[in-house]
Structure formats: structure tokens, C-alpha cells
């Protein structure tokens, strides 16, 4: 009798152990709804193959992404896979949050189609800890109807800042003759660090300036070229008066809404707005192109987006990578992302049937070539003094030169901690 019960117990334990070993689950975090769809498709595929491997998705809103990830890391409860804002990767790599996936990346057949600039943000000492997953690029959006009304060629957006100033002056009007301007040639998002960086850094780069040097150790914002870029920006408001006088307080939604209601003729935006503009104002006739360059400079753009990374302490590294590969596959990048108006991150997939339907996407293949993002483990902390200084210059309180010199001082102080 005793031998029988021991046998039963052993069988139960063995079955349970096998059961546990067979049902593997990974946790995937992202701020984008498209990844939720991807997880559902992954689980469907696993089920179809008779496997018990599953992924569990948790949507982490953009606003709270950093807080929750920090809390999870501190508690040892980090997700197996996380899709995280690209500019935060240098910091998280500096504390060793992610797994080295260099060899896995090099083994991919589409390795050369991954944007190098993005890979660099996830790189430490020649090893990669994140793979480009989604990409956002900044460009200039213009309202073709307003161009026509102003006598400008709607198919010829400004290429340089001088041209933009010229066009914007024709586009800034007092439409209802009440003595106040109610249509502006250009909209500036003055109030948000993130939007300023996304839109304004390419301007600085095009002027030959920069915020930091290549590895983020030296402050370059007080160089004459950077100051020249800010001077032009401030002139748009106060000298040429083509942007609202209080631009320093305009939120992104303010400028966006202004463009959609056709009170703002041009603004800096990103690829994602191609779809959202169509939702909010289907009759809006707009185009999107490179951010204008300085007279003697090159076009530039900011490559935002996410890198996907695997947690260093994951217990399911292989399953996690299996999911990552799935998310990077052509099916997902085209059918989930390109279909919803986002750019596929693999340059070999730009030529897809959804983009063929709307010619406006095509320019982004070219914009991707000139796009970059700054590498810094103190990204947010360094940009804050820059934004404050810019706002004071934009409000006319101090000169652009003074502004960036003050900012440089604050930034150097932050770097020393």
C-alpha cells in the first residue's frame, strides 16, 4: 500500500514538473497598441503549432513607462521583453538592464536593413543590447490649400530656412481683418522638451551645431553654430512674426490642432501624423517632406522610436528572442505596422503595398538616411536646461547667445554628478 502511494505521488510530481516545463510564458511590455496585436498573433501561431509557449502583453502608457520599468527592475520583476524609447537605452545599459544580443542580431538575414543610427543607441563597447523595433522620423508638414491661396506652388515646399521664412511671411495673415493675425505661417512647439528635440535638434544639426559630442561627454550647445540656429528660431517669432508670439507655451496638441483647423500653415511633425491628420481632418490637403536645412548645411532628422530589448535576468532568453524575431518579421512589420501608418523599421520593407497607396510615405526612406539621435546616459537631465533657456529666448527675455551659454553652464553642472 505504501509503495503504491509513493508511486502515485512520484507520478503526480513528475507530471506536474513536465507540465510546468512545457508551459513557458514570457511577459512583453510596450506603449504601442500594435504590439498587443503582435502578441495575439504570436500566441495564435504558437497554438496552431501545438506549442504551449505563450506571450503575455502588458500595455504600459508612454507617460508611465519609465516609472513602471524602474519599479519592476528594482523589484526583480522586469518583463522578459520590453520595447523602450530609444533615447533611454544608454542609461539602462549603463546599469546593465539588458541582455547582450549581438550574436543573435548578426545572424539575422536582414541585418543590413537595420538602421545603423538606431543600433548605435543600443550599443555599448561594440556589443548590441537592443534591436530597432519602431521608428519615428521628423519632417516638415505643409498645408497645400493655404499655399495655393498665398500664391505659392503647393508641390514645392521650402528646402532651406531662408525659403521657409519667405513662404511663411506670405502665409501669415489677418484673415478676418480684425487687426490680429489669425493664420500663422509656422507653428513652434515651445513647451515640451521631447517635441523640441524631435523638431529642433535637426535644425541645430543642419546649422552645424550640436547638443553634445558623439559619446555624450562634452557640451557643445554654446558653439556659434548652435546659437545661430536658435537665433533663427527666435527670429521666426519676433523678427519675421511668422510664428505665434507665445510659442514658448504652445503644447504639441496646440500646434497640431492649429494645423488641423488650418490656422497654422506649416509645422514640424512626424511620419505618424500622416494617418492621424486623415482621421481628424479628411479634407486636409497636406504634404510632408524633409525639415528645411540651413543655407550651407545638410538636411537632418531625428530618429525617435523604440528599441526592443531582452531583460538581462530573463529565464526564457530563447523564447524571448523567438518573439523578437516574430515581431521583426515581414508579416508583422508590414501587416501590423505599415498598415496602421507607422514606418517599418527594416529598410528592406519600405517598398510595401500600403505605402504604395500613399506617396507621402516614400520620402521617409530618404529621411531615414539622414536621421540620428543623441547618445547620452543623462538625456532628459541635459535637455531640461536647454529647453528652459530656449523658452526664455523665445519669450524675448534674453538673447539666444545668453540662453545657450546659461544652458551650457547648467548642463556641465549636471554632467559632473
Amino acid at each position, binding site marked *: 500500500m505504501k509503495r503504491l502511494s509513493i508511486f502515485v505521488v512520484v507520478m503526480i510530481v513528475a507530471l506536474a514538473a513536465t507540465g510546468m516545463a512545457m508551459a513557458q510564458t514570457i511577459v512583453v511590455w510596450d506603449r504601442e497598441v500594435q504590439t498587443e496585436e503582435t502578441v495575439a498573433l504570436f500566441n495564435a501561431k504558437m497554438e496552431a503549432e501545438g506549442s504551449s509557449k505563450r506571450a503575455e502583453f502588458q500595455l504600459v502608457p508612454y507617460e508611465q513607462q*519609465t*516609472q513602471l520599468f*524602474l519599479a519592476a*527592475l*528594482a523589484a526583480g520583476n522586469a518583463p522578459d521583453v520590453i520595447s523602450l524609447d530609444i533615447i533611454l537605452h544608454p*542609461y539602462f545599459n549603463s*546599469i*546593465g*538592464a539588458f541582455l547582450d544580443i549581438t550574436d543573435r542580431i548578426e545572424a539575422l538575414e536582414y541585418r543590413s536593413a537595420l538602421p545603423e543610427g538606431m543600433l548605435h543607441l543600443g550599443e555599448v563597447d561594440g556589443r548590441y543590447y537592443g534591436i530597432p523595433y519602431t521608428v519615428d522620423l521628423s519632417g516638415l508638414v505643409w498645408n497645400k490649400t493655404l499655399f495655393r491661396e498665398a500664391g505659392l506652388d503647393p508641390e514645392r515646399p521650402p528646402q532651406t530656412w531662408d525659403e521657409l521664412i519667405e513662404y511663411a511671411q506670405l502665409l501669415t495673415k489677418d484673415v478676418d481683418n480684425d*487687426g*490680429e493675425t*489669425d493664420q*500663422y505661417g509656422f507653428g513652434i512647439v*515651445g*513647451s*515640451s*522638451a521631447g517635441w523640441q528635440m524631435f523638431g529642433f535638434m535637426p535644425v541645430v544639426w543642419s546649422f552645424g551645431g550640436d547638443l553634445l559630442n558623439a559619446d555624450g561627454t562634452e557640451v557643445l550647445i554654446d558653439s556659434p553654430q548652435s546659437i545661430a540656429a536658435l537665433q533663427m528660431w527666435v527670429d521666426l517669432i519676433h523678427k519675421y512674426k511668422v510664428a*505665434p*508670439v*507665445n510659442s*514658448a*507655451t504652445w*503644447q504639441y*496638441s*496646440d500646434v497640431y*490642432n*492649429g494645423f488641423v*483647423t488650418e*490656422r*497654422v500653415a506649416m509645422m514640424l511633425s512626424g511620419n505618424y501624423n500622416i494617418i492621424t491628420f486623415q482621421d481628424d481632418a479628411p479634407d486636409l490637403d497636406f504634404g510632408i517632406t524633409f525639415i528645411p536645412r540651413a543655407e550651407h548645411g545638410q538636411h537632418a532628422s531625428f530618429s525617435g522610436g523604440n528599441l526592443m530589448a531582452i531583460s538581462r535576468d530573463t529565464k526564457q532568453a530563447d523564447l524571448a528572442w523567438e518573439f523578437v524575431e516574430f515581431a521583426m518579421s515581414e508579416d508583422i512589420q508590414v501587416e501590423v505596422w505599415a498598415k496602421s501608418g507607422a514606418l517599418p523599421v527594416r529598410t528592406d520593407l519600405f517598398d510595401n503595398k500600403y505605402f504604395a497607396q500613399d506617396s507621402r510615405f516614400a520620402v521617409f526612406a530618404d529621411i531615414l538616411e539622414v536621421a540620428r539621435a543623441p547618445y547620452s546616459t*543623462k538625456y*532628459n*537631465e541635459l535637455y*531640461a536646461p536647454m*529647453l*528652459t533657456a530656449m*523658452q*526664455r529666448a523665445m*519669450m524675448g*527675455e534674453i538673447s539666444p547667445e545668453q540662453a545657450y551659454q546659461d544652458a551650457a553652464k547648467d548642463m556641465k553642472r*549636471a554632467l559632473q*554628478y
Partner: protein
Amino acid sequence: MHNLQGVRRFFSKHRTGMMFLTPAVALNLVFFVYPLVRVFQMSFYNWSVLGSNRFLGLGNYERLVNDPLFWKSLSNTVIYTLIVTPGIFLLALALALLLNHKSPLTNVFRTIYFVPVAISFVVASLVWLWIFNELYGILNYVLSSLGFISSRVSWLGSTWNARLSVSAMVIWKTAGFSMMILLAGLQGVPVECYEAANIDGANARQRLLYVTLPIIRPTFVMALMVSLIGSFLAFDHFHVMTQGGPANGTLTIVMYIFRTGFEYFNLGYGSAMSIVLLIILIVLSLIQTRSLQSDTVE
């Protein structure tokens, strides 16, 4: 009484009080005091989420004292609190007094004034951000259509404008809540007190000043303290409507703590600021209680 006998006598004498208090104290200790102690610990380190923490002693506190942005955000918060609190209370008191009568529509009116309280702060902020926009916002549109203003007002365009506009939004949103608290207090005023006052020939103003206000004083003090502390912790509306701008003119202390911890990853420094904020608020509350509190009214 440091001997065991004395302690045991103390516990048995106050046993009932302690038992009534236990659930609240238990929750408080486990879910508040314990994490707070950890935060206190963190404030002495250059604290990193993974990996090693560098012990700084009082380093974070020294840094705080010398940080101009800390003081600026603190003064922004104080200014905002000074604007908003009287606004909320004058309106709430007026509404509570107005609606302290029984009339067929009183319940409806009260509910309507409570409606703004029922939405989330984030949604309210988004809606008002839209209303306040100088170019296409409704407020300017309505005011200029009615002829009240001749040129567009930039409601959020400068530091003081932003402070006042956001304060107006907060007053709109929270007056109903304070109204509710004051109403509950007003209901506790026995009818006999009013009747006695009438017999003595008091008019409405005298009734208000000498009967109503003294009796609802504890309620008033409580509502005031809750509102004050809440204003000190202001975050959501400024975050959505001004992002602390322009040039940090509306940066509140909690926004700065949030940024320091979750955008600059200086968690130890953020913890130190939280501790200092807590101490400031405790001191403020003690001062307020001492100067305004009266004993329960018989």
C-alpha cells in the same frame, strides 16, 4: 512609567481605544510607513535601481539646499496654493450656504456643482487646455463674439497668466468637493441655535458670523487642511497644461521630484526632496491646527 506593571496598566486601561484604532494603524504602517522608511533610506544614497548604491550621507540634502530649481518649484507651489485656496473656499462656502435650504431643485443643483469633481484631473486639464488656446480655443471665441474682449487673450502664454488660468480651472474643478464637506458640517448645526439667534433679533449676517461659522469651524479647518495639502502636491494639471513652463514658471515641487526621479533617474535625490516636502507639510499642518483649532462645541 518604565516598569512593566505600569505599561500593562496603560495598555489595559486604553485597550478599547487601541482596538478601535488597530485596523487603521495596521494599514498605515504596512502600506505607508514601511515604504516611507525605505524612501528615507534611499535619500542617503546615490541610489541606482540595479547595481551598487553609493552612500552620500547628507549629500542629497546639501545638493537640495543649493539647487535653485528646488527653491523655485517650492515657491511656485506656495504661490499657487495661496491663489487657489481662498478661491476654492470662498466659492465652496458660498455654494454650501446657498444650498443649505430644502427646495425641490436643491439636490439637482448640488449634483451639478459636483459634476466637475467627478471627472479625472487629466481629462479636465485636456479639455481646459483646448478651451484656453489663444488661437482656436472656445473661451476667446465666445468672449470676442460677445464683445467682452477686443483682442485675443493668451490665457496660458505667460507665467502669471498660466498660474491664474490653471488656478481658475482647479477652483472650478474642486469647489464642489469642498462644498460637499461644508454641507455635511452645516447639517450638524442644530436648528435650535438658529432659532435662539432669531429670538435675540440677529439678522442674516450676524447669524452667519456668530452662529454658523463658529460651529462649522472644525469642519472648515479640516476641509482647509485637506485642500492646502492637496494643492501642495499639485501635479497632473500643470503637467498636462503647462509642462511646468514657461521657463519653469509653473513647475511645482512634485513635478520636480517626478522629473528628478523618473526622467533624470536621480532616485536618491528625489527621495531626499520628498522627505523635505513631507517635513514642510507636517510643520504647516501643525501650525494650522494650533492657530485655528477649537475644541468640540458643546
